[in-house]
């Protein structure tokens, strides 16, 4: 979390993660080179360009798959933890591809390389003339902005909202890259398999995002029920207890876009914002670990009773008032200022202690 900024706060999980990442990238490049070298006479520079380019796109598809997959299975969650290292590695591969291509194709000539890239072709004279390099360059600039601001220092200084918006740029970059490949190297490809692989990857990415979105939308619709006096119904106490394991939460949508996480700890409920102060991770999918609500994405922690990170950390998120009326649990949609302590809402253990 954010006591002080270090280049990267290493821990064993991150190191293991990065070791596997380095192994995968080195393996990819090696297999590519060996396969190409056995298939035809090679030009190492061109092969490096191709290996870095295809590798970066493959890694990008993997990165974009993690988020939606984690919505379907919490078992993918460990991959989310260090996702930005994947992003930085992917950017570096894309950069290597771009530097090689720019030097080799656009360097050593009568125009400077950037002019050569930006003045290439015209989009109005058939596919062969549509320039594809500027698309790649635009994607690279977006990926650069993301890699450069991936550290938590930027997250804090840009505010999570701006940071998140910036990092949604990855979808713009992905779209640009699909066009870059389709209008570029696919025009020369001798093996039709490349077009199929690109189409399959694009369909996969769009498909899992739509599926995850539909899942979330359904869950939100189910959770949303306003009562007359402005309180939002969380559910029958018995049902909420049955639905949530000890130390887990029920996520409740309180208006069009705000979510509240109602945590259960022993016989008490507490409600905090469902959005992590770090990168907006879903706290409703978090868990109380060592007495603190812990975010499923990178493990930021908050006390359920006041929405504050335990010292020495200083993140604060809004808290919400809860009330039990009859056998029904309600939450008030008016957020208390971040870090406001609220007493937990206890259920009366009437029916033989079963709530």
């Amino acid at each position, binding site marked *: 979390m954010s006591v002080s900024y270090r280049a990267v706060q290493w821990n064993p*999980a991150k190191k293991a993660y990065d070791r596997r990442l380095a192994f995968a990238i080195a393996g*990819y490049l090696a297999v590519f080179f060996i*396969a190409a070298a056995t298939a035809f006479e090679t030009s190492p520079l061109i092969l490096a360009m191709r*290996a870095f380019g295809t590798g970066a796109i493959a890694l990008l598809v993997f990165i974009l798959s993690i988020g939606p997959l984690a919505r379907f299975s919490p078992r993918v969650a460990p991959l989310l933890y260090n996702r930005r290292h994947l992003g930085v590695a992917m950017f570096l591969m894309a950069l290597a591809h771009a530097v090689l291509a720019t030097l080799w194709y656009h360097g050593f000539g009568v125009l400077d390389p950037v002019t050569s890239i930006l003045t290439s072709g015209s989009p109005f004279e058939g596919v*062969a003339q549509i320039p594809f390099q500027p698309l790649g360059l635009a994607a690279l600039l977006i990926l650069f902005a993301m890699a450069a601001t991936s550290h938590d220092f930027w997250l804090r200084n840009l505010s999570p909202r701006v940071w998140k918006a910036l990092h949604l740029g990855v979808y713009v970059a992905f779209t640009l890259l699909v066009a870059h490949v389709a209008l570029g190297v696919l025009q*020369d490809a001798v093996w039709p398999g490349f077009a199929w692989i690109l189409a399959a990857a694009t369909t996969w990415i769009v498909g899992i995002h739509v599926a995850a979105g539909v899942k979330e939308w359904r869950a939100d619709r189910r959770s949303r029920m306003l009562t007359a006096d402005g309180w939002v119904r969380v559910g029958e106490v018995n049902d909420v207890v049955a639905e949530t394991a000890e130390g887990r939460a029920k996520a409740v949508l309180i208006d069009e876009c705000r979510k509240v996480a109602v945590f259960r700890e022993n016989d008490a409920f507490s409600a905090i914002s469902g959005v992590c102060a770090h990168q907006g991770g879903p706290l409703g999918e978090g868990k109380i670990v060592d007495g603190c609500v812990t975010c499923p994405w990178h493990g930021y922690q908050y006390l359920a009773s006041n929405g504050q990170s335990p010292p020495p950390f200083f993140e604060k998120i809004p808290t919400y008032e809860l009330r039990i009326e009859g056998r029904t649990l309600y939450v008030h949609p008016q957020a208390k200022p971040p870090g406001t302590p609220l007493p937990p809402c206890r259920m009366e253990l009437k029916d033989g202690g079963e709530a």
Partner: protein
Amino acid sequence: MSASNEFYVGYLPTPARQRHFLSVFLPVCAFLAFVLAALAGAFSRPTGDGVWETGHEVTVEGELLATPFPMMRVARADGTMERVLLVEMGKHGADARIAPLVPTDGTRVAARARGFLIARGGQRMLELVEEDPVTLGGTLPARVDARSIGTVEIAGEIVDSKCWLGVMKPGDGKAHRDCATLCIRGGIPPSIICEAPDGTERRAIVVGRDGAPLSFDSIAPWIAAPVVVRGNAEVLDGMAFVRVEEIARADALVRSSERE
């Protein structure tokens, strides 16, 4: 709601179920990545069999020509003639260097040129060294062996000779288009390449109707696109030239190519 209460926190040990899942999932992903790498590597476009003997300096001797592009007429061991194109380092033609050395009145000039060979399919090019690559003097070879082919129509692609002969690998196709454009803009001779009916590569240097180089602007829109070139072809010392009458987009047009 949650079937399992296991929960991953990056700085705590990974719960067993997630660890087991990842111990299968990650190797599967890595395996898929390696399969993809193998396919992408093996099926990526072959880079052609051109060579570029950079670092290995050679000297060629013969008659120096400045038009339509700088080149040397060289006698082969068997007495036949060949033409070796001369270019500078990078994406630059050798016009500025060679033109002042060859009189325009038709006087023939013998010379030696030093540089690095670029070669593909029996066609050679010399990339001149930077310092004093050309010395005048030597014996003049036999007169030009010219053969006229007549009007031809070639369906193919316009490339720059230098990259295609062995510098770029591959030196054609859309990915290479901007590079070819830069080269031709810089004075490297443009060529049209096509595949002969027997599957072999063929190449002819593209010049204007009057035999002089085409202006860059007139050829730029046609570079690295499927085109049909119509014009008069001739073979000079074994090197094919097309004096272009007309260039058109090939699009769906498929015509037989008939040329040397």
